């Protein structure tokens, strides 16, 4: 395993020291692993808290700031944060208008957020929760833990964050967050596995000519293995999965997301094919994002996430945002 780290045990805290040094707009509690907006809590504003295992950077800490999250809780690598972190974040961003928990649908995340919400609730903070579960590679049935939360998390955080910034009440912010999730779908593809620092070797092995289809963001193997093909064909497989689940039409927001080890050059190649697919389906590529946003350590591959926009969602997407990883309008 070759990584730029000091030790396997200090990966997350060392990175948080770097995050703090890099972004004066953040207040980072390195020891407790909570990242706040420097100006949190904002009186009267609904607080947005998200969190999850580390290894998905810039998610979530890179989305803390004006118009997006008020706090993020990074867990150990690929391990959801513990309730203590979430409680400190929740209580620390409550400006009296309540707090929205944005939770990716993984058993660990769900359970830890649930415990924190109960305990913060006991302390008088009003907490609402939105579950993000956009990954169509997983069947949402009684026989699975339900669909995973992946790329749509960014959409939910951005759009709910923009609404919260206007002073909207918790119920509204939670409603729009759920609406974004409901209108979003994702599918991921890996060209290589991931190496978790504490594990020291790749989580799975892929042959030179193989890819994994329907992967998540934790280096879990996907649903099926397939031969490596042209980008165009791989994109078609991914987009068909998305489109079969929620047919593409109208104004669409698209994220082509790198898994961490794939160069931007290749992401643009993928994006060209995604744009062509949308055109073929008669949908409008109305807003877009290409880059490494919801990553899986050093995994090579990409995911594509679509969101069917309404006028309200478009307006909120376009609203100013100022975070380390997403910034426009100020």
């Amino acid at each position, binding site marked *: 395993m070759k990584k730029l780290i000091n030790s396997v045990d200090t990966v997350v805290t060392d990175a948080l020291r770097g995050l703090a040094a890099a972004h004066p707009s953040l207040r980072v509690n390195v020891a407790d692993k909570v990242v706040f907006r420097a100006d949190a809590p904002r009186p009267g504003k609904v607080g947005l808290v998200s969190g999850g*295992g580390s290894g998905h950077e810039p998610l979530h800490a890179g989305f803390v700031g004006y118009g997006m999250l008020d706090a993020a809780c990074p*867990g*150990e*690598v*690929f*391990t*959801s*944060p*513990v*309730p*203590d972190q979430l409680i400190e974040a929740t209580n620390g961003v409550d400006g009296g208008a309540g707090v929205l928990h944005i939770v990716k649908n*993984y*058993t*660990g995340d769900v*359970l*830890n957020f*649930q*415990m924190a919400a109960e305990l913060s609730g006991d302390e008088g903070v009003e907490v609402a929760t939105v579950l993000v579960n956009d990954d169509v*590679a*997983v*069947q949402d049935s*009684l*026989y*699975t*833990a339900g669909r*995973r939360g992946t790329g749509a998390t960014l959409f939910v955080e951005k759009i709910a964050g923009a609404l919260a910034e206007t002073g909207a009440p918790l119920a509204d912010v939670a409603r729009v967050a759920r609406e974004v999730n409901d209108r979003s779908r994702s599918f991921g593809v890996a060209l290589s596995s991931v190496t*978790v620092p*504490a*594990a020291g070797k790749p*989580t*799975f092995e892929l042959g030179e000519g193989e890819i994994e289809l329907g992967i*998540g963001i*934790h*280096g*879990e*193997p996907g*649903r*099926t293995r397939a031969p490596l093909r042209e980008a165009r064909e791989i994109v078609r497989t991914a987009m068909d999965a998305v489109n079969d689940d929620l047919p593409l039409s109208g104004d669409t927001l698209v994220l082509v997301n790198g898994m961490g080890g794939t160069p931007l050059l290749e992401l643009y190649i993928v994006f060209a094919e995604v744009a062509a697919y949308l055109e073929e389906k008669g949908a409008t590529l109305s807003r877009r994002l290409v880059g490494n946003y919801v990553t899986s350590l050093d995994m090579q591959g990409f995911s594509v996430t679509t969101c069917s926009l309404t006028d309200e969602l478009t307006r909120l997407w376009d609203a100013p945002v100022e975070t380390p990883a997403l910034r426009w309008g100020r």
Partner: protein
Amino acid sequence: MNTQFFAAWIEEIAAVVSAQRDHLTQLDAAIGDADHGANLDRGFAAAREALAAASPATPGALLVLVGSTLIRKVGGASGPLYGTAFREMGKQFGDRPEVDLAELGTALDAALAGVRRLGAAAEGDKTMVDALAPAARALAQAVRDGLAAGEALGAAAAAAEEGAKATVPLQARKGRASYLGPRSVGHEDPGAASSALIIGALKAAGSR
């Protein structure tokens, strides 16, 4: 079984989890996200430290502290689940200074109930429940059969071990492994494997 017994149990768990850390992580790598060994190692090391610092006076207080520490330190799915399990056991013991085998059995039932309430997993879903449930049944049976402590704990350990191995042919319906669908078949569930280690450690603690 007194406070010392349960302290020894946690020592045994910490030791075996540390020794089996890579094995548990590799099981998790096959059908999960390769962190189960690191998670539990971190958690039980922290539990040992917490016990050393607080020296709880009763089995109940000790197990509640262990459970809370796991919840605070582990994260992931296993943190809240195991944390709740230990807390439920501890709460079941109340402030009794010593407990007997039957009380241990009841506490194990409570632990299992806590895990099932939180995780909503049934037996056969390929989770830690597949090791914990047979262990609880075996212990209850041993109590009914009037077995001695050593034998009873041995029966529970064997049942947990067997339950864990029996997860191999199952398709996961809960947790991260469920994402794999049929590809989860053929691998032992990491949480069931760690549960077998934890129950096995009871027996080891008893024979100290």
